[in-house]
C-alpha cells in the first residue's frame, strides 16, 4: 500500500495539473482581494466613507478566507476537475494495469487514489485559504475577532479541509467506477454544485427562531452547510461535530460504493 501511495504521489507531482493548480492557488487570492479592494474604492468614491465601512464589515481578510472552501466558489469549483484529471491519468496511461498485474488488489488501488487526491486537495486548498487570508488582510483589512470568533474560524478551517475528503472520495468513486474522464468531471461537478448551493440556501433560511431545532440539527449533516453558516454566524462546537459527522457520512458513501464498483470492474 505504501508503494502505491509513493507511486501515486510521484505521478501527481509530475503531472501538469499540480503546477497549474498551485499557480491558481497562489494567484487567484490576489486577484480576488484586488477586485474587492477596487470595488471598495469605487463604493467609497460614489457613496463616501460610510459605504466603505459597510463593505469592510462584509468583506475583509476573514470573510475572503471563509469563502475559499466553498464548493461553488473559485478554486472549489474546479477542484473536482483537477482531482478527476489526476486520477484518470493513471487509467488513461495504463499504469493502473501495471499495479494490478503486480498483484495489488483493487481496493488498495482505490484507497491509494483517494488518499492521494485528498492530500493533494488538502495542500492546494490550504495554500489557497492561507493566501486568501493574507491578501485579504493586506488589501481589505483584518476582521475583528472575539475569542468565540477565533474558535469559529478554527472549526471552519478544519471542516473546510476535511470536507475535501468528500470531494476526493466522490472524484475517486466516479473516476474508477466509470473509467470515463468527461462523465466523471461533469457528474462530480454537478454533485458538488448541488450540495454547495443546497448548503448555501439552507443556511440562509434555517436560522430563524421559528425553525424547529431538529431540522437545524439534521441539515448540519449536509456537507459544507456548517461552513456556509460561517458567513451568517459563529460555528459552535456542536455544529462543528454535526458538520464533521456529515462529512464522514458523505465521504464513506462514495468511498465504499466506489471500492465495490471498481472491484467488479474489468480493465482494458
Amino acid at each position, binding site marked *: 500500500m505504501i508503494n502505491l501511495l509513493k507511486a501515486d504521489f510521484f505521478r501527481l507531482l509530475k503531472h501538469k495539473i499540480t503546477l497549474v493548480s498551485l499557480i491558481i492557488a497562489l494567484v487567484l487570492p490576489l486577484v480576488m482581494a484586488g477586485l474587492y479592494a477596487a470595488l471598495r474604492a469605487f463604493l467609497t468614491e460614489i457613496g463616501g466613507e460610510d459605504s466603505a465601512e459597510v463593505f469592510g464589515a462584509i468583506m475583509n481578510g476573514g470573510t475572503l478566507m471563509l469563502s475559499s472552501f466553498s464548493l461553488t466558489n473559485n478554486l472549489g469549483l474546479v477542484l473536482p476537475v483537477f482531482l478527476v484529471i489526476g486520477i484518470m*491519468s493513471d487509467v488513461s496511461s495504463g*499504469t493502473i494495469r501495471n*499495479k494490478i498485474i503486480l498483484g495489488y488488489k483493487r481496493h488498495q488501488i482505490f484507497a491509494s487514489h483517494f488518499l492521494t487526491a485528498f492530500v493533494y486537495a488538502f495542500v492546494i486548498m490550504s495554500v489557497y485559504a492561507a493566501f486568501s487570508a493574507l491578501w485579504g488582510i493586506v488589501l481589505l483589512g483584518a476582521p475583528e475577532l472575539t475569542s468565540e470568533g477565533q474558535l469559529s474560524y478554527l472549526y471552519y478551517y478544519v471542516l473546510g479541509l476535511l470536507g475535501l475528503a468528500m470531494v476526493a472520495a466522490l472524484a475517486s468513486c466516479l473516476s474508477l467506477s466509470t473509467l470515463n474522464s468527461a462523465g466523471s468531471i461533469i457528474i462530480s461537478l454537478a454533485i458538488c454544485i448541488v450540495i454547495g448551493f443546497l448548503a448555501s440556501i439552507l443556511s440562509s433560511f434555517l436560522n430563524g427562531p421559528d425553525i424547529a431545532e431538529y431540522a437545524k440539527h439534521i441539515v448540519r449533516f449536509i456537507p459544507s452547510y456548517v461552513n456556509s453558516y460561517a458567513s451568517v454566524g459563529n460555528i459552535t462546537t456542536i455544529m462543528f461535530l454535526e458538520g464533521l459527522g456529515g462529512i464522514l457520512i458523505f465521504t464513506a458513501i462514495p468511498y465504499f460504493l466506489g471500492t465495490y464498483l471498481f472491484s467488479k470492474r474489468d480493465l482494458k
Partner: protein
Amino acid sequence: MDKNPVFQTFSLTKSYKGFKAVDAVSMNIYEGDVYGFVGENGAGKTTLIRLACGLIHETSGEYALFGVLNTSKEIVNEQKKLAAIVESVAVNRGMSALDNLRLQAKIAGIEKSDEELNKLIDEVGLDHKAIEKKKAGSFSLGMRQRLGLAIALLSDPKFILLDEPMNGLDPQGFVDMRETILRLNKLGVTFLISSHILSELDKICTRVGFLSHGKLLTELSIDELHDKTRRKISIRVKDADDVSEKLVKNFDIKESKVEGENIIIYDALDINEVMAFLVSKKIKVEGISSSEETIEDFYRELMNGEVKQ
C-alpha cells in the same frame, strides 16, 4: 512433463453479454516455454492474457500461476513474478523514459538507482542520453514498445506476457525483440506471446496454441508444428480423381487431396519420380510443382477446419 507449470487454465471462460470471448480454454504453459498464441482478430488472445493478468474477471473456470489457483489468497505473491504488455503499452506519456521507470519501481517497491534504470533503457535499444529530455508522448510506437519492455523487465519477472510485441517495431526492432526474448528465455524466463506474425513466432516459440472464436483448437510443440508444415507436391491434370488414385496406389501415399484439376500430395516424394510415373502412364501433365507448406498455410487450414487435430 517434468517441468513445473507456470500458467494453467481450467475451462476458463470469459463472456460479455452472452458472447464468449474465451470459451472453456484449458491449457498449460511450463517453465522455460516460449508459448505463442495464434488466432484471428477477436479469437480471444488478448482476453486470455488479460485474464492471466487479473485485469478482467473470469465468468467461469479457474487459472493457476506457478501452481497457485487464482481463487487462493496466495496468488498475490505469484503475481509479483509476472510482467505484461497488454495491447497498448502502459506508459505515462507526460513523463520521460527515466521517470516512467522510476514510477514503475515505486509501484513494484524496488530500489533502483538512476544508473541502473538508464542501463535498462539502453538494454532495450533506447539511448538514454538521446531521450533524456523527451517525454514518452513524443516517442514513436516502436520506442514506446521498447520502453514498455523495459518497464516489464524492471521487477525481474519469471513469466512475461506479451500481446503483439512486434507491433510498430522496425526490422531492427524485430531482431532486438526476438534476441531479448531468447536471451531472457535462456535465463529461465517463461513467455506467453500473442502475435499475428507467424514467421516471428516460428523463430522464438517452443510451443504454439491456436485459438479461434475463443476456443483453443490445438496446442503443438514447435517440432510437431514443423512436422505438420511439411513438403507437398501439386499436380495439375485433366482427370484429377483418376490420376490421384493411381498415384496413391503406386507410391503408397498416406495423405492427398483433389481440388478441381489439382492433386495435392503431402509426402516427401521425389518430384522426378512422380513425373516419370505420370509420363509412363501417358498422363498429360499441365503443371507440377513442389513446395513446403508454411505455418501460414497450416494456420489457414486449421481455421477452415481442414486439419485433423
